[in-house]
C-alpha cells in the first residue's frame, strides 16, 4: 500500500533528504527522522498548535502536513531561527519576560510570532493575539507571551537586519 519515497527539501536553510513513508506527516519526519525534537505535539489532530512550523515562511501545523507534500519546500523549525550564534529576538524576549513557562507551546508560538513580525513588524497587541489564536498555552494565560512578542518587535525594529534574517521563503 504505502511506499517509501525520497523527500528532499530545505530545513533551516540546509538541504535535507530522507527516505520516508508516504503516510508520514512532517511532524513525524522532523522529530523522528531528522531528530529535530524542538517541534512539539499535543494532539496530532490540529487542535492545539504545538506542532506549528514555518513552511515557506507561513505557519502551518506539521501534524496535518503530509511529508510528501513538503517536497522542495523551505521548512523552518525552532532550531533554525537563531542567527550567527545569537538567539532570535523573539527567543530572547520569551526567555526574559516569562513567555515560556513549561516551554511546550513555545516553539510553535515563537515560529508563529516570527511569521507575523516578518510580515507586520509593528503588529498591535490585537494582531498578535489573533495571530497566536491557534496556539494553545495552558501555563501562561498568554499575557507574558504577548508582551514578549511586543518586546521582540521593538527590538527588531531597532535592528532591521533581523527582520528578514532566518526567514525561509
Amino acid at each position, binding site marked *: 500500500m504505502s511506499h517509501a519515497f525520497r523527500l528532499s527539501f530545505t530545513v533551516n536553510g540546509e538541504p535535507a533528504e530522507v527516505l520516508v513513508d508516504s503516510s508520514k506527516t512532517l511532524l513525524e519526519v522532523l522529530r523522528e527522522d531528522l531528530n529535530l525534537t524542538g517541534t512539539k505535539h*499535543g494532539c*496530532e489532530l490540529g487542535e492545539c498548535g504545538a506542532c506549528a512550523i514555518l513552511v515557506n515562511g507561513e505557519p502551518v501545523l506539521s501534524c496535518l502536513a503530509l511529508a510528501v507534500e513538503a517536497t522542495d519546500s523551505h521548512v523552518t523549525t525552532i532550531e533554525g531561527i537563531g542567527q550567527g550564534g545569537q538567539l532570535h529576538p523573539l527567543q530572547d524576549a520569551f526567555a526574559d519576560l516569562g513567555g515560556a*513557562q*513549561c516551554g511546550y507551546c513555545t516553539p510553535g508560538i515563537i515560529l508563529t510570532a516570527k511569521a507575523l513580525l516578518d510580515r507586520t513588524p509593528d503588529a498591535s497587541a490585537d494582531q498578535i*493575539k*489573533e495571530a497566536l489564536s491557534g496556539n*494553545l*498555552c495552558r501555563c*501562561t494565560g498568554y499575557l507574558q507571551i504577548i508582551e514578549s512578542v511586543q518586546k521582540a518587535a521593538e527590538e527588531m525594529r531597532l535592528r532591521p537586519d533581523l527582520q528578514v534574517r532566518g526567514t525561509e521563503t
Partner: protein
Amino acid sequence: MGVIGRPRRRTDGRAKVTGQTKFADDIMLPRTVHCRLLRSPHPHAKIISIDTSRAAAHPGVLLVLTGKEFPIPYGVLPVSHDEHALCNDKVRHVGDPVAAVIARTETIAGDAIKLIDVVYEPLKTIATPEESLATAEPRIHEYGDDGNIHKAVAMQFGDVDAAIAGADHVFDDIFFFEGNTHLPLEQHATVALKDPEGKLLVYSSTQTPHYLHRALAKTLSIPAAHIRVIATPNGGGFGGKSDPFNHEIVVAKAALMLDRPVKIALNREEVFYCHRGRHPVQMRFRAGVNNDGTFTGLDLQTLLDGGAYGSYGVASTFYTGALQTVTYEIPTYRFRGCRVFTNKPACGPKRGHGTPQARFGQEVQIDKIAEKLNLDPADMRLKIVAPPNSLTANFMKIGTIGLAECVRKVVERSDWKNKHRKLPYGHGVGIACSSYLSGAGLPINWNDLPHSGVQLKLDRSGGVTAFCGATEIGQGSDDVLVACVAEVLGLETYDIRAVTGDTDLTPVDLGSYSSRVTLMMGNAAIQAAERARELLAEGVSAKLNIPKDRLVFADKRVFDSQDPNNGCTFQEAIVFAEAKFGTLGTTGSYTPPRPPAKYKGGGVGPTPTYSYTAAIVEVEVDPETGWLTVPKVWIGHDIGRALNPTLVRGQVEGSVYMGLGEALMEESAFRRLPARLSNALVHKFPSILEYKSPTSLDMPEIFTDLIEHPDPAGPFGAKEVGQGPLLPIMPAICNAVYDAVSVRVDEIPCTPEKILKALQDKAAGKPARHGPKSFPDIKWPETLHVTPPWEGGDGRASNEPERKKRTAEAGIEVKAGITIARDNA
C-alpha cells in the same frame, strides 16, 4: 541583595526557547521499541480471559504483557494501593489498560493490540455519586468504607449546632462544582531502559519522581537503590502527572525483559484516561451569621465523585474541608466529607487540590450573606479575615496573612466601590478570596525524613552545582533553586548549574505538587548554601586574615565589608576552602514544623505558611442569551516575597487563566448511552478541541498586584503562588454574574445556558437561581469531636478511635484488604 526580587530570565529559559529542553518524548535512543496499551472499552467488567497469541505472532511484535505480569498493586497514597499496571481481574472504566504490546514501531504496536482477544463479563456500571451511594453491590473495589463509598469522614470543632442556632441568620446553600482536567499541553511519555550496568533507568514526564521510584520498586520487586528515575521537564503538569502511572510501570517492566529502550507516548485521549483531575463535588454549606457579618459557625458537607481509583482521593476529601477556617474567622466548625467510586477515570489533585470546589461554595455563600445583610461583600470579608499568627478552630496554624491588604488593593484598583451594585444591568463585578498551602505539612508516606533535600558541589573551577529532587514542570523550580543559592553565595544564577529530578543524583524532594517546592526546596537550598558560605568564609578568613563575620559574598567576590578591595574572587574562595577542608560539598534539608492538629484527618491542611489571594472580576452578561464575557480581572496575591517577579506574575496569570477556563467552559463530561441498548459510559469528548480551553482571544485584561510581606517560614520570605490565585476566580465570576443580572449560578462551569435558565426561571417567578436543589443523604460515620483551641482543646479528638497504625496523611485509617506500603526510605 542581588538575585532575589529582581525580574530575571529564568535559568531554563534559553533551553525552552531554543527547543533544546528534552521532554520525555524527545528522548530518542538507539534500539528503542515502542509500547501501546490495549484499553478497556467497558466501563465495568470482569476479565474472563485474554488471548494474546495472535498479537504475539504479529510481525514486529517483541512482547505482549497482561495483568498476570503485574500482580502487585500500587497507588500514590499508602492507604489506596488499588491500581495494577495492567488490570488483573476486572476493568473499572473505559480506558483502563488490560494489555500491552511492545513492537518495533508504534504503528505495529497499535495494530497488534487489536489482535488481542479479551473476553469480558460486563458488570453494572456506576456513573454518578448518587448511584454509587445507592449501589452497595457490585463494589468497584473490595476496600473502602462501605459499598462503593471510598472514604467518609466527619469531624466537629466546638458546638456548631448551638452556635448556628444562636446566630441572627442561618444560611443553607447547596453548590455543585463539575469535574475538569489539567490538560497539560505535553502528553505523558516515558522511556525505560537498562543502563549499562544492567539497572533500570526510567525517564518520565512525572511531577513526582520519588513516588514513581517507590511504585517501581514495589511493583517490580527491585530494590529502589537499583532503579533510577529521571523526571524530564514536564510540558505542564498542574497535578496531572503526580501519580505513578500504569504506563510507566509497564514500560519499565518491558525494558527489563527486553533489555532495550522501551518508549510509550500517550495520545490525547489516553491523557484523559490518566486524568486525576478535579473531583466533581456537591456541597452543602450551613452557616450561622450575625447581623454584622461575623460567623458563629459553619457546617459543611461535601460529596466527591472519585472515579475508579483512590489516587490522592482520601487527601482530596479532607482538603474540601480543610481551608475554610484559615481564610475567615469561623469559631465553630463541622466538616463531613465523602468520596465515592464511580466507573470513570480516577480524579485526583488538580491545581488547588480539593479546595477550589469548597472555596467556590463558601465565597458564593458569603456573597449571598452580604447581600442579605446589606453589607458590601468586600467590607464583610475584611471584617472576618482570619487573624495572623493564630490557631483556627480546626487547629490549622496561620502565620502571616496579607489577605486584607489583597482585598483593599483589588477594591481600590478596580474602583469596586463605584461599580458593585452600581453598574448598568448586564454588567457586574464580583469579589472572592482564597488561601492555599505552601506545601503540605505532612508527607504522604509517614516518616520523620526531610521533605526536601539539596546538595551543593563546589568545584575548584569556581563552578557550583545544586542538586535537588524537585521537578521542573514549568513553574520555575530550577530557577528558584539556583536563585536561592546564588543569593546566599553572591553569585548570578548563570554561575550555578541545577541538576534536578534524578533519583540517582539528587537528594529526595517529594515532588512538584502541593505548592511545596519554593518553600521547602528553597529553605533547603538556603541551608546548603549557608553551610557552603560558612566553609568558604573560613577558608578566606584564614587565608586573607579577615575576621569571618566581616566577610561579604557579593558580585562573585568575597571581601571585607570594611575594605571592599580586600578580598578574592569566588573561585579563589573555593580554592582556599578546598585547600583547608578537602573536597567541598554541603547539604541542606527542610522538614516542616509539626502541626498542632493531632486528630485523625488533621494531617491534611497544615502548612508552614498559607498564601492568600483576593480577586475582583468584571463581567458582561447578555440577558437575552446568557452569553458571558469577562473583560477584566484584578488580582492581589500575598506572596510573602517574590523571588523572581516575572515568574510570580506568570503563575498568577496562569492561575487566572486556568480558573477562567474552569469557571466558563472546562468540564469532564461523560456520556451514558440508553441502558436498553448499551452499557456504554464514556468520556464525552476526550480531545483538546472539545474539552474547551481558553485561547489568546478569550483572555481578559489582568491586573496583578503582589503583596510582599516576607513570611519568616518562607525562603527569603516567599510563599506559594502556583495554585492559590486560581481559587477565587470561579466564585468571583458567579458573584459578578449575580451583580450583573441578579441571578445565581451555584454551579461550575457557569455557562450561558445556565445563566439563561436562571433568568427564565426568574422571569417566571421561580427562584432566580440555577444549581443543585438537594444534597444527597449520606450515612456519616461517628463525628470526631475536637475542642477548639480557645475552649482549651489540645488538638486531639475526645472520641478518637485508637489508631491501628501510623500511616499516611496523619492517621488515615488502614483498611483491610489493601496492601500497605511500608516506608522503606
